[in-house]
């Protein structure tokens, strides 16, 4: 029951094809049903928000999409390929990158290294060259370093390049995490509550980055967020989950005024 998006709210896009199609997925942990028979899709180039009360299964949904959880039922079609699950690092290879609800950075490493780690899949030089730090290994390192520096510039985190991320304030950590995900050059970027714990100013910054990534790089984004202002402003379409079930799906305006959503999630109309 995919509602056709309101053409008015849609931006002009070259393609309208579906990048990711989740079909009838169910996931349970022992007795806990985290996701019950949910279908949803993400179109090429859009910003897709997933909202819902705590414990609704949003994070689980992302985990299913990038292969960390294997659903008991249903299939996922990504770029036309159908599957039930795959190894997370395969998902990365296919172009799915993500950030995490509870910052999952490599705490002992510097910002630069964290973002460089995002490029691990793309780096190939073997141990021997690494050992010598000459020729191809060095060259490869420098090539990727340039790419990473672009991201660092883009996210305006030059000043913390060498700081171990464990010491950074939370907001910056989230930003580094975004950087790491971007370093993977994903075609689908999954963001799990990127603005939780941020103040207004930082949320504005983060919004700007998300929009830029989406517009300049053409990256498709799936976004979980509890700040309704952000969700409503940024997203093209919103899907609402509640206790593992989908209760609404549509443009921000449609969702905002949906009574079920108000009851289950928003509390008061926003």
């Amino acid at each position, binding site marked *: 029951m995919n509602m056709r998006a309101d053409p008015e709210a849609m931006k002009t896009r070259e393609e309208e094809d579906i990048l990711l199609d989740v079909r009838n997925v169910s996931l349970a942990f022992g007795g806990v049903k985290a996701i019950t028979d949910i279908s949803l899709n993400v179109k090429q180039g859009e910003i897709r928000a997933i909202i819902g009360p705590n414990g609704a299964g949003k994070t689980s949904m992302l985990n299913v999409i*990038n292969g*960390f959880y294997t659903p008991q039922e249903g299939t996922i079609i990504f770029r036309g390929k159908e599957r039930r699950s795959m190894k*997370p*690092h395969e*998902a*990365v*290879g296919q172009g799915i*990158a*993500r950030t*995490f609800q509870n910052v*999952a*950075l*490599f*705490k*002992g*490493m510097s910002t630069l*290294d964290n973002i*460089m*780690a*995002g490029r*691990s*899949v793309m*780096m190939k*030089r073997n*141990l021997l060259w*690494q*050992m*010598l*730090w000459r020729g191809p*290994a*060095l060259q*490869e*390192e*420098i090539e990727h*370093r*340039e790419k990473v*520096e672009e991201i660092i510039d883009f996210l305006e985190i030059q000043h913390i390049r060498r700081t171990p991320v464990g010491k950074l304030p939370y907001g910056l950590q989230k930003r580094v995490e975004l950087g*790491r995900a971007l370093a*993977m050059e994903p075609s689908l970027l999954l963001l799990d509550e990127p603005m939780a714990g941020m103040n207004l100013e930082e949320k504005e910054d983060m919004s700007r980055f998300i929009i830029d990534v989406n517009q300049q790089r053409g990256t498709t984004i799936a976004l979980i967020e509890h700040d309704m202002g952000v969700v409503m402003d940024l997203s093209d379409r919103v899907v609402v989950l509640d206790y593992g079930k989908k209760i609404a799906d549509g443009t921000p305006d449609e969702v905002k005024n949906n009574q079920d959503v108000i009851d289950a999630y928003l509390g008061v109309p926003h």
Partner: protein
Amino acid sequence: MFYRTAGQFKTSYEADHALFPVRQDAYLLGFILLLAFVVFPLTASEFAFRALLIPVLIYSLAALGLNILTGYAGQLSLGTGAFMGVGAYACYKLLTIFPEMNIVIAIAMSGFFSAAVGVLFGLPSLRIKGFYLAIATLAAQFFLVWLFQKWAWLYNYNASGAIQVPNIEMFGITVAGPRAEAITQYYFVLCFVCAMTFFAINITRGRIGRMWKAVRDMDIAAELVGINLMRAKLTAFFVSSYIVGVSGALFVFLWRGAAEANLFDIPLSFRVLFIAIIGGLGSILGNYLGAILIVALPVIIGSVPEAFGIPIGSATVEHLNVMLVGALIITFLIVEPHGLARFWAMIREKLILWPFPH
């Protein structure tokens, strides 16, 4: 003042990737190398070579190997001693089977044996984590030492069950065996250790090093970032065990001169672990600092009462020594859980700011 970094600008990423982005660090290293290659050999006594310098170098190398596994890749290992043993026995067998083989090659090759064994015992790390993984390494520890004892082929069926290093020459100079001079052995070990350190630095700061650290800091996230956990962990076991194996071969061939199986038992593993931890996990420099502390300290403590002519029984000295080492370990952990390397980093940071803090 000395550590003024201002005015040192990098104009390319290549320069930024140099071994020592801060020039003073390079000077410092030069100074240390000068000490190691010139000053010590000129001044040290035979006792100093055998009781201090050579063991410090070899233990640092072993700790470096362990540090790669535990400090960089986050896989706790309590089996270092046994892997050193694999290196030592491999080298022994290589040299008995091919007596003509150059000892440098034999030592370098023996590392591969322990690397292979390391990877084998590293396989469980794909499923088992943290302290539970320690069991896999302990299984290696106990099983291998048992094997060293029971498999007579390993020690050429010697009645005593020990391996004995014969006199080995290289370019006409005896480098190993009872006739070798301490100073020759020192240089031999020093060169090996320097080369291995250089390689280790390069590996740990590049792609592979990053993969390891990522796995250490958060393996789930590493996996979700596209790092193949299996590859990362097994390369860590490989590289680590290689270095440890080489250090084991050096340990026996260039220092101890002979070894029984139980030399590689758990106290050795713990000693190396101490060095790595007191020195600082995830640091290369730390291994050296740690080794200096753990190797030199007992020697010094042992000679203090003697120097002051205090009549203490040798057993009491030994007991006090053990107690002190225990207390020191605890003290160091409390003062700086991140090890001596962090200590140095702090000093260095202060020096950079000095004399104008904040």
